[in-house]
């Protein structure tokens, strides 16, 4: 359960980091975001990733928690990549439909 929670938090953290990157804003938010929103997303993203470290530390102890943290970060980040891919597929499928 802790793993599930940690991965979900890491996913949210990386999603915020992705949305703070201009090249993903069109896909994720549908428009370019204001600089202040972008900055908040970035700070929020990093904060969440740190929060996962704290959570892992409390749940598993320092050493084990640190190892688990890296695992949670990787799976969380890959999940964001998968999510973005699905988003692009959907957008493509929708535009193909509207064209034909």
């Amino acid at each position, binding site marked *: 359960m*802790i*793993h599930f929670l940690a991965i979900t938090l890491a996913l949210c953290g990386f999603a915020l980091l992705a949305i703070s990157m201009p090249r993903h804003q069109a896909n994720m938010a549908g428009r370019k975001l204001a600089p202040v929103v972008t900055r908040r997303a970035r700070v929020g993203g990093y904060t969440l990733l740190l929060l996962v470290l704290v959570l892992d530390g409390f749940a598993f102890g320092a050493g*084990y928690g640190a190892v688990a943290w*890296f*695992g949670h970060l*990787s*799976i969380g*980040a890959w999940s964001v*990549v998968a999510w973005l891919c699905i988003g692009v597929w959907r957008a*493509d499928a929708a535009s193909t439909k509207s064209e034909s």
Partner: protein
Amino acid sequence: MKEGLRQSMAWLHTWTGLLLGWLLFAMFATGTAAYFQDEITRWMQPEVTGRPDPVVAAEGAVRFLQTTAPDAKRWFITPPNSRSATTQVFWQPDGDRPRGSRRDTSATLDGQGRKIEARETRGGTFLYRFHFDLHYLPVIWARYLVGIAAMFMLVAILSGVITHKKIFADFFMLRFGKGQRSWLDAHNVTAVLALPFHLMITFTGLVTLATLYMPWGIAANYASPDSFFDTVFAQSEEVERSGKPVPLAPVGAMMRTASAEWHGAGVGFLSVSNPGDATATVSLTRAPEDAIGSRGPQLTLDGTTGRRLDASVSKGAALETESVMIGLHAGRFAEWGLRWLYFLSGVGGTIMVGSGLVLWTVKRRARLPDPERPHFGFRLVERLNVAAIAGLGAGLATYFLANRLLPLRMEARADWEVHSLFIAWAAVLIWALVRPARRVWIEALALAALLFAAVPFVNALTTPRNLFASFAAGDWLFAAFDAVMLLLAAGFGWAARKAARPRSVRAPRRAPQASDTVAAA
């Protein structure tokens, strides 16, 4: 310097990655599988069930050894851990006896100390050993080769971070259907998003065999490598048998003594010197699953009274670091959640190496003077890529299939399981060399997919432990194994379908969908 840092790093990355990339792919793939080596062994011995208690199992192993090898110089007992079901015993016969093969001095026992009546297999242990000892090759050569490959990997990782300058800008980028761009994305995403794991696993992998690769420290300070290992790993000194028979005290009580000393951690290994003699001693080592450090503390007890004789001195900082690094690499301490994270990171590393190998050809194909007639080097790399990636997949699936299909009482059965892996692998290599390049990826990937898909079905036909029965019985190990086989089949099948799409040298403006291609076909 004429060329910039990035160009020279790109060159380094390309060629260190390619030269031993095929070996690295095999090391990553089998090493990743080895995170589940105990589970794979259990799947490959479906006759063995239950969750034996380590203390009861160790006492049973002592009963077995007392009848089988009462006058041995030493007994070595590895009781089951929380994931395995069997006890491994090995004994060192008395000095006067001629040394037989390892088969005559070792046995696999069940939780009561009876010899296991199950199919002969090397199980997951083979994949673990192959990961650094390879096969059909003297172990020492294999380990040097593997060490060089790991060193190249380290160079490739570091130069890769410099070469692929856009990895951080493209952090979450994975675009399909864009030829070279897609391969680069896949390479980056699998590499960067698990970069700490890749660095850790490569560096600590080198540390596991550091004394082999860099023997000079030991050579300068010890009379021989053996005296170094005796000092560091506290091998108790050999004592002559007194000839006065005294029965061994119960090892169960000794294991409880040791556990109490280690704050409840279990015993992972016992070695009994001069069993049945007045001079008997028992050394117990902490189970590797109970802490990150792989070299746990030892406790030596008097074999006849169970009285405490000696405890291993605490290690210095260097040895403690080594112990933790090897522990991090092998992940024996990881409970199932973290074990899956290790496994998935390993899968990411395998895809990273595989996509890097493919990228070498994809990048060069566009620049070939005549793409229909590529030069020899290009053809070689292309075909070796097929053999390394799809061939190993087909080989692993064949290894599992052979476990279910070879006759149960066959002579040298375990060896033939291993041979079948390499026969399948070699068959794909030969296939890759003779078939037209366009077809060979599709065919080899489809073959691997079919073989993986066949594993759960053959398992259902040859054992009562099929996927549905496993689900119904809550046997998650068997269910998960079958599920992973199906996922691998789906992965290879998807790759085969992708490879079957017409190849475009120039990326189209917008990615055509996989469904579009099917509709158009």
